[in-house]
C-alpha cells in the first residue's frame, strides 16, 4: 500500500467516523431540532407544560372563525388524527388558508386550547399555474363525488 493510498483510506475512515458521530448527535437531539410538534404529539403529552412551543399541521377546512375586529381569529390545527383549537390575535400571512399547512407558536391553556402569539404559513413544494391547480382540484372533487351518494348533495368543493 502506497502512502498516498494509506492517507486516502485514513481520510475516508475519518469521514465515516465523523458521519457516525454526527448521526448519533442528531438522533439524540431529534426532538430539539424539530421546529414543531403535531396535535397527536400534544395529545400524547409531549408538549412542554406552561412553556412556549410550536404546533404544526393543516388548518381544518371550515374551522376558521374571525371576530368582528378582523384580527382576532380561531382555527383548528389538525394532523387528520387529532385536532387542537388555536386562538390568535394578529395579522395572518398571505398563504394562510383552510386546508393548507400552518405552524403556530404559543402556549397551551388549561382548557386544552392553544393561544398563539405567532402564526406562520407552511406551503408545499408544488409549483404550477392556477389552471393546472384548478384541473387537479376538479379531478379530485370528481373522484370524491363518485364515492358520495347523490342524496348527500355532492356539492363540488369551491376551487379557486
Amino acid at each position, binding site marked *: 500500500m502506497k502512502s*498516498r*493510498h494509506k*492517507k*486516502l483510506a485514513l*481520510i475516508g475512515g*475519518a*469521514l465515516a467516523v*465523523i*458521519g457516525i458521530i*454526527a448521526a448519533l448527535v*442528531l438522533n439524540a437531539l*431529534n426532538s430539539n*431540532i*424539530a*421546529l*414543531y*410538534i*403535531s396535535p397527536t404529539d400534544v395529545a400524547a403529552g409531549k408538549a412542554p407544560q406552561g412553556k412556549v412551543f410550536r404546533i*404544526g399541521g393543516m388548518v381544518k377546512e371550515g374551522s376558521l372563525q374571525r371576530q368582528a375586529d378582523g384580527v382576532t381569529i380561531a382555527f383548528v390545527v389538525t394532523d387528520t388524527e387529532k385536532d387542537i383549537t388555536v386562538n390568535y390575535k394578529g*395579522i*395572518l*400571512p*398571505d*398563504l*394562510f388558508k383552510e386546508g*393548507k399547512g400552518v*405552524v403556530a407558536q404559543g402556549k397551551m391553556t388549561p382548557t386544552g386550547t392553544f393561544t398563539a402569539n*405567532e*402564526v*406562520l*404559513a*407552511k*406551503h*408545499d*413544494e*408544488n*409549483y*404550477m*399555474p*392556477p*389552471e*393546472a*391547480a*384548478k384541473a387537479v382540484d376538479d379531478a379530485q372533487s370528481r373522484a370524491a363525488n363518485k364515492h358520495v351518494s347523490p342524496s348527500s348533495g355532492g356539492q363540488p368543493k369551491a376551487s379557486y
Partner: protein
Amino acid sequence: MKDRFNLYRFASPATFYPLAGAMIPYFAAISVVFGLAGLYLGMLVAPTDFQQGEGYRIIFIHVPASWMSMFIYLVMAFWAAIGLAFNTRLSGMMAQALAPTGALMAFLSLWTGALWGKPMWGAWWVWDARLTSELILLFLYIGYMALTAAIDDARRADKAGGLLLLVGVVNIPIIYFSVKWWNTLHQGSSVNLNKSSMAETMLWGMLLMAMCFWMYSIAVAFMRVRTIMLERERHTDWVKAELADKTAGDEK
C-alpha cells in the same frame, strides 16, 4: 513526453495557468447565455404560481444559489481530500479560489430566502433545520477563509483548511435531507430525479439559472486561482517568464 496527453500535467500550476486563462472567456460567455435564457424563461414565460402568485419567481435565484452553495462545498472538500492524500499544490489553490464564491452563494441563498419567507411564511427567519444548517454552511465558508488567511505558510494553511473542509462536509447531507428528517417550516424539495412537482417551464428556467450560476462559479474560480498561482509561485521561473511577457507586452 510532452506530446502525449497526460491529465497529471494539468495538476502543475505552470500548465494550468494558461489553460484556465484560455477557458475563462468561454465559461463567462456560456454563463451569460444560460443566464439570459433562464431569466427570460423564468421572468417572462413561466406561469404564475397557483399559491404564491408572482412572488415565487425569486426561486430562480434562490434554488440555484442554494444548490451551488452545497455543490461548491463538495468540490472544495474533494480538492481538500486530494490535497491531503496526494500532496498536490494545485488542490489547495482550487479550494481557496472557490471559497469566496461558495460563501457568496450561501449568503445569496439565505438572503433571498429571507426576502421570500417574509411575504409567504410570515417570517424573515425561523430556526428550522434547513435554514440553520444553511447558515452553518455560510459560517463554514467564512471559517475556512479566515483560517487559511490566518496561517502565513500557504501549504500549512491548505492542510489546516482542508481538515476543516472535510469535517464540515457532514453538513451537506444534513442540509439536503433536513426537510425530510425533521419537521421544518421549509417545504420539501420540488426537484427530484424521478418526479418533480413543478410546472415544466418553471423547472427549465430554474435549471438554466443553475447552469448559469455553475458556469459563473467556474469562471470566477479560475480567475481567482490564476491570481493565487502567481502569488504563491512568484519565485519560480514560469511566473517570472509570465510576468516578463506581460510587462514586455505593456511596453509595446
